[in-house]
């Protein structure tokens, strides 16, 4: 199994979308939310996404970005100035 730590953020209107449910049911991924915040204008969560392969996890990421969410590696850029 492959695990990726991701930061997922979205505008408030996406909050109504059951994205975690869909990641599980439609993409067979296992999301584990470690920290999150939902406000009136925006929402974000720090998750660990577990799947069978890199490509498998990428399908879930593509689903999220397709909805308009921003997905980025949790730790930020490794490359520094």
């Amino acid at each position, binding site marked *: 199994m492959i695990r990726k730590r991701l930061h997922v953020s979205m505008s408030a209107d996406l909050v109504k979308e059951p994205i975690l449910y869909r990641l599980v049911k439609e993409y067979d991924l296992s999301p584990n939310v470690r920290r999150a915040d939902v406000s009136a204008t925006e929402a974000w969560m720090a998750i660990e996404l577990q799947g069978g392969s890199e490509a498998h996890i990428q399908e879930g990421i593509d689903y999220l970005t397709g909805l308009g969410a921003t997905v980025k590696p949790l*730790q930020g850029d*490794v*490359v520094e100035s």
Partner: protein
Amino acid sequence: MSNLAGLKCKECGRAFDPGAVSVCDYCFGPLEADYNYQRASKLATRKKIKKGSPDIWRYMELLPLEGTRPVDLSPGFTPLLKADNLGARLGIKNLYIKDETANPTHSVKDRMVAVAVSRAVELRFGVVACASTGNLAHSLAAHAARAGLKSVIFVPHDAEPAQLAAINIYEPALIAVKGGTQRINALCNEAMSRERWAFVNINLRPYYAEGAKTIAFEIAEQLGWTAPDHIVAPIASGSTLTAIRKGMTELTAVEILKSQETKLHGAQAEGCAPVAAAFRKKSELIQPATPATLAKSLSIGNPADGVYALRAARDTGGAIAAVSDNEIIEGMKTLAREEGIFAEPAGGAVVAALKQLASARSFKAGETVVAVISGGGLKAPEALSGRLKPPRVIEPKLSELESFLAQLRRAENVPGAVDM
């Protein structure tokens, strides 16, 4: 005996042993060094610090080392210069420049790398590593050489030739990776999961970040143990501004300062300004940016400490400015012309941010403002390509020289001879 208590999650506060770990495995928050401040307050006194060596190690009581002799190129204790010429130009009476170009490899990174490599020795790593567009790589290669450690350095395949030479002279394992930042990020993460390397800005990040807080200690000490009203620093990964905040806070925690209310300001390039954008939108979310600026040392699209730099500015009443490439070049020229300091583009961004903040009346009359100039311009000369007046080429004849001087006098409307 060290004052290092361990590592602590910045988000949930969980405690961790001080090993090579940077992320809380519970909430995924970043870890930072935690100290026994009560004990440190008895040891880190103004008197003791004054007797210390003229570098970052004079603040050893608040650095995350456990007694090993540090890997030492004597970084820090850089000049704090009163910048009256630049101040007059910008309308800031009490302006100071913290000149980080005076560090051993000419950038602020020496502070961070010195601490991280010293900690790598304590944790018995044989190899240190990083991925960098220049300053960090240069500093790591130098400190690894000094420590007798092997270094593995990843750079973008299109890194600047001047930077490559400055890294390569120390003979690290230098790897130029094809593809963009995302590819290098992924490769480094995979490498780190397989090799027992001290990746100074990843698994040793809690220690690496600590080095930068010594800027705050020095500024306060060089101002006669007072906190300035404002500090302006560039934001790339966000670690410097975040660390300056921690440093200012720790000075009150150990009672060297009774209080401090320093406003922290950041400078980013418009072509890569994810933190400035979040500040402007009053958001906590840092949306990744695709860098498009000549300021390579500010080209971090997904800054690891971006949210903490954002909070440092917001919580202290500071601001984050985004400045154009033209403003950055103009800032570099102004700093050189007015104060004799040749900065990298990040320094030009800070000068441009000072101008923006002064115009917005962010500084009250008489307030003390410190601008952090993070690195030297010799490392990024290509940024100035075609932007400076070329030299006048003449034959070695007095008549040609006189003709040129006459032109110069006319152009500058200077009566009589020009002093050369």
